[in-house]
């Protein structure tokens, strides 16, 4: 379903084509479980301050109880002035934000303008509502455009909220506690960054699904400062013993060598533009 919303409006109403297919797919895994999608089990937060928006996220991706990725990037690029934090199913957040980003790039090229945050939100909401919650993406969109600094949240069922500060993900309650306590309108940059850092840190310590490092993205009229990682985890895995294996530790049972007979037929040289 790679529709470009900008170039053609999607068909009206709800599309239930995949319901029968999903039911059939579940029947394929008789007895066993359908493969579990990788969830991010996250803490993400955003704060509007005097000159722009600060977004923050942790970097742990879990697959049920196992940490699948210790350094995953949850703050996604949408447009030069809009970034998006994603919580929920990792593939859904990545693909949704990529789709949104391409749509907005086409729009920018067509109209010659930087996209507005409200446009990104509308496209996202439209798409997620159309899929009736099957796309598990909880997103925090933040950006600065000609109308000001904006922070929106979009839920997987298509709900939208415009807010001055926000946290999402499994660690959202811990982070929201910090934000509720420390948020003031029109904060300075350093205070806003510190508030978001403390909020994500609270999520990391209290929530088992969040952990490792903290990424911060600051968006202002002047530009974007994507600091990854803003704060490294203080828990370095320092093991005392070395676990090395000599060559030959794994026994070689049989060896078969197939030589490829290649001859040069034609050689062309093309200069690569590395400027």
């Amino acid at each position: 379903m790679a529709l470009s919303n900008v170039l053609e409006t999607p068909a009206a109403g709800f599309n239930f084509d995949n319901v029968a297919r999903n039911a059939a797919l579940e029947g394929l895994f008789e007895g066993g479980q359908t493969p579990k999608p990788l969830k991010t089990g996250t803490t993400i937060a955003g704060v509007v301050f005097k000159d722009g928006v600060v977004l923050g996220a942790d970097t742990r991706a879990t697959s049920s109880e196992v940490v699948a990725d210790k350094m995953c990037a949850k703050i996604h690029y949408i447009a030069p002035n809009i970034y998006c934090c994603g919580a929920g199913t990792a593939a859904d957040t990545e693909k949704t934000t990529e789709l949104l980003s391409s749509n907005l790039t086409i729009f920018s090229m067509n109209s010659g303008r930087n996209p507005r945050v409200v446009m990104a939100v509308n496209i996202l909401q439209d798409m997620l509502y159309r899929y009736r919650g099957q796309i598990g993406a909880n997103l925090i969109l933040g950006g600065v455009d000609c109308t000001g600094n904006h922070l929106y949240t979009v839920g997987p069922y298509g709900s939208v909220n415009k807010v001055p500060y926000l946290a999402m993900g499994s660690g959202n309650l811990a982070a929201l506690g910090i934000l509720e306590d420390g948020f003031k309108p029109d904060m300075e940059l350093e205070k806003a960054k510190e508030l978001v850092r403390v909020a994500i840190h609270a999520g990391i310590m209290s929530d088992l699904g969040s952990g490792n490092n903290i990424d911060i993205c600051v968006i202002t009229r002047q530009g974007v400062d994507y600091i990854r990682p803003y704060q490294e985890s203080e828990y370095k895995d320092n093991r005392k013993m070395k676990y090395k294996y000599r060559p030959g530790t794994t026994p070689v049972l049989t060896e078969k060598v197939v030589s490829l007979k290649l001859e040069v037929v034609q050689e062309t040289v093309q200069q690569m533009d590395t400027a």
Partner: protein
Amino acid sequence: MLSAQGFGDTGKMKEYHYTGPVEHRFSPYAFNGGTVLAVAGEDFAIVASDTRLSEGYSIHSRDSPKCYKLTDTTVIGCSGFHGDCLTLTKIIDARLKMYKHSNNKTMTSGAIAAMLSTILYSRRFFPYYVYNIIGGLDEEGKGAVYSFDPVGSYQRDTYKAGGSASAMLQPLLDNQIGFKNMEGVEHVPLTQDKAVQLVKDVFISAAERDVYTGDALRICVITKEGIKEQTIPLRKD
């Protein structure tokens, strides 16, 4: 607005006109996480556990060790449902006292293991949701490890990992202590210091990748001199 907590799964299509009875089940069990590990050496035994108590995605306590001292030569590690762990250790303590009073001697590790097996099997149809590992010295003073399943099946091992990160630790122990999957490596017998260092390193690895393991590591080293405990910190996130 629906809270983000509700979006655990990629949502299933809800039937909006469903008016029939909906079954809600109460589960008597909860999973509180935690990992235990026991290693038997020539004249020592080590029982180690992490100290995190969790439920769902929350942490109940960062200082709840899962090793319980039974006698001067035996320590048991219990992980799984914390309620059952507490009750089971109380029952074992009571039975140890009863044995001491009737037989005028302390129970040996092998005897405790056999007794635990019958205690667990007596609850075959409503089991204790506990993964037990007993570590101690046998009558000859050699290290002994007994590992159990929730309904009482047990065997004597040289090393065993149990609990949430057991699937990650057991292959590592098979390789480093059992010298499995390696060739041409000298089988040096395990010294106490090397064993303790290995246990620490192995738990650091478990805490990296298992969300239920972390906070701190409690190691109990059992020798004929007695039981020495040490606690080292692990990841808290």
